[in-house]
């Protein structure tokens, strides 16, 4: 028990040091230090690329989302005032860029179905209207042929973009549902429901594949 407390204390201290380092990097980047900015990019860009791949229907668009997101961060970093964590701010940028991208794509599609409220009164927002990907649609996204990863990748593809995002932000990045709701411009309740649906789908898919 005592050891556990000590480890917790060490972990907390390490987190504080890491946060201080990050704040120092951000301040340097705000002052125009390009190397500091690139170090910040290096800390988060893998997550950003994965998030982008989850958000857009065409994986080949993910690099565009990646680049535009970091350019927006670069241009607007002076506006970051440490009121939220940097990654929350960054993810908000990525989400906005991805939304703009999806809107542009949608507006170019002549066959895009109009937004229609369901007969039961439920309304579907932009994320809900994005078509889900079939597991076979993107063979290049299947990673390295490892069976379990393939199954998990297939299961993740069955989620809607919003379900994937909520699941990823909650379980891969440890964000709270309230923050996720804020980030996606929706309520905590909606984020919670998305998480429930995502978990249920994953459970069912992986159970079915077993």
């Amino acid at each position, binding site marked *: 028990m005592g050891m556990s407390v000590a480890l917790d204390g060490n972990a907390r201290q390490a987190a504080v040091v890491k946060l201080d380092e990050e704040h120092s990097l951000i301040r*340097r980047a705000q*002052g*125009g*230090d*390009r*190397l*500091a*900015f*690139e170090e910040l*990019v*290096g800390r988060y*860009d*893998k997550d950003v*690329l*994965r998030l982008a*791949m989850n958000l857009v229907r065409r994986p080949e668009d*993910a*690099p565009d989302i*990646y*680049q535009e997101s*970091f*350019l927006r961060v*670069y*241009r607007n970093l*002076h*506006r970051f*005032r440490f009121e939220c964590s940097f990654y929350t701010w960054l993810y908000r940028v990525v989400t906005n860029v991805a939304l703009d991208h999806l809107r542009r794509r949608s507006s170019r599609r002549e066959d895009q179905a109009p937004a229609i409220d369901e007969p039961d009164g439920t309304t579907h927002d932009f994320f809900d209207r994005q078509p889900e990907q079939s597991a076979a649609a993107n063979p290049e*996204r299947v*990673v390295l042929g*490892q069976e*379990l*990863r393939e199954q*998990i*990748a297939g299961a*993740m593809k069955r989620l809607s973009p919003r379900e994937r995002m909520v699941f990823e932000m*909650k*379980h*891969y990045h*440890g964000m*709270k*549902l309230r923050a996720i709701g804020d980030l996606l411009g929706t309520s905590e309740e909606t984020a*919670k429901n998305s*998480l*429930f649906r995502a*978990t249920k789908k*994953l*459970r*069912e898919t*992986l*159970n079915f594949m*077993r």
Partner: protein
Amino acid sequence: MDRNIHGSHETGTDWCVEWETLLILFAAGEELDSAEEANVIEHLAHCGNCRAALERERALLNELTENRVEPDVALLASCRANLRDALDREEEGGWWRRRIGALVPTNWMSPRPAWSAALLLLLGFSAGIFGPRVLEHHPQILAQNRPSSPAINAGSNPDADSPQANEPGNSPLTALDLRTADVSGINVIPAGTGEPPEVQLQLNQHQPVTVQGTVNNNDVKRLLMYVLDNSNRFDPDVRINAVDLLRAKTDDPEVQSVLCHAAHSDRNTAVRLKALEALDGAEPQELVRQTLLDALNDQNPGVRIEAINALQSMAARGQVVSDDHMLSVLRDRMLNDPNTYIRMQSAAAFRDLGPRQKF
């Protein structure tokens, strides 16, 4: 690897339906308040099914987390390289804008559009109402701001610092003139020892105009600064002359900023080099220091060498103090610069600047 992570039921869960929501949130972590968490723990203590289902849920989440799909390494590397290129392009175009932008209180204005609009209106009205009155009572301001009366010969004007234009009735050197004018050449007339040289700037407008004076004259200075700020409109030789002339005014923060901009962003290597040379003797502001550090990453090896030399000579004069950032940039050049000479020079600078400042 145990892939039986969902138990044996088709639904994958065995938990009590009324506890499902709380249990999913409990498994997700940090979503329940302390009372809800206590209730869940108490329920788990009595319900074996929910306990087992929770374990399976956690196992599923662990599997998903440990085996998440990561972006392809080659794709990530390609994204990084493209981002670097895009940032280079961004810096070329946006460096000056960001410097100016730092002076504008956008942090205050952005979230308060109504107040900002009201403030701007108020400022506009105030300037319109009180500006003319102030100018009326202080005619010297008008005189200072009014461009010189036209003349041909500097010698005929007792005030050597007044700019002169050779066009009778010439319009003032306004911002509009600068935008439309093309500086076709700069003639430098050497002065006595210690005196700034006389400058003749030939502008091609609707009719040719010559502005003449020393760099101490505000209009001449503005014109030279304008040349450097708008490098795409003027030939490199004109820009190099402008840098050379402004060198005498590096104690002026405006001139310093423009020289930093040229050292940082001018597309011509010779201009960047000349600007760095000019900054070598400048009273070091943070901007100068940062410009020299940025120049260590210039694409041209000559510029990088000049930047190292400038940093070393300024450090020798006690004008710059090294810090971790400067040392890290020098260390990076020392280890990674493709040019052998620069790696050696960086190592020498690192040796000179590092220990001296630390001990």
